[in-house]
């Protein structure tokens, strides 16, 4: 039971473990891929504001898959992220919008308008 109590204070320990595994995975990548992943992660943290731990871990895992495979294939970083890296990151991020802080407000907006529209009928 103690573990459960600690987790309510610190967040999921399992997710922390997965996060550490992800970090180790990134560290093992060749320099240029590692640097690219770190730059993308930085942007994801600023812009994405993913607050759900499980969604965040899944997202980082998917990002790791892409770069590990690309490193194994020797795909140049430019060919992975394309001419517009912002475009790529935002397309990628759209898959995890349910974990974003702003999603609560999106749902709230949708409910508010739904309520008004229903009353209008």
């Amino acid at each position: 039971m103690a573990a459960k109590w600690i987790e309510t204070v610190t967040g999921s320990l399992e997710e922390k473990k997965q996060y550490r595994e992800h970090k180790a995975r990134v560290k093992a990548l060749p320099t240029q891929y590692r640097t690219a992943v770190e730059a993308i992660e930085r942007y994801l943290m600023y812009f994405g504001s993913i607050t759900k731990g499980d969604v965040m871990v899944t997202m980082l895992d998917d990002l790791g898959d892409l770069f590990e495979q690309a490193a194994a294939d020797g795909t140049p970083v430019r060919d992975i992220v394309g001419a517009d890296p912002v475009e790529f990151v935002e397309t990628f991020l759209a898959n995890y919008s349910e974990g974003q802080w702003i999603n609560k407000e999106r749902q709230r907006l949708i409910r508010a308008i739904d309520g008004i529209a229903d009353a209008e009928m």
Partner: protein
Amino acid sequence: MGKQMTEMLKGTLEGIVLAILAAQPAYGYEITAQLRAKGFDDIAEGTVYALLVRIERNGLVDVVKRPSEKGPPRKVYSLNTQGRAELDEFWKTWGFMAERLETLREGDKK
């Protein structure tokens, strides 16, 4: 690729990827390579991958991990029944769009 092309491609890339998967199961890099071979030269592997993540999360594909000679196992995507229905819907919409736009173009020529 021009700006307009990029914008148009954004709206249709999911359908294009589903159509490629309808022909045969493939992994991410293969799909990107096929797109490039078909003339979409500037397409980024990451963009295709992000799309694959989405269609997987929407339940349109089945995924199996297959070991590769080098590097981690590859995720091979194959279209499932739901994906097939989505692709049929895409072609219907595409047909409608193309027909409407052609009508506009005919009007423009006069």
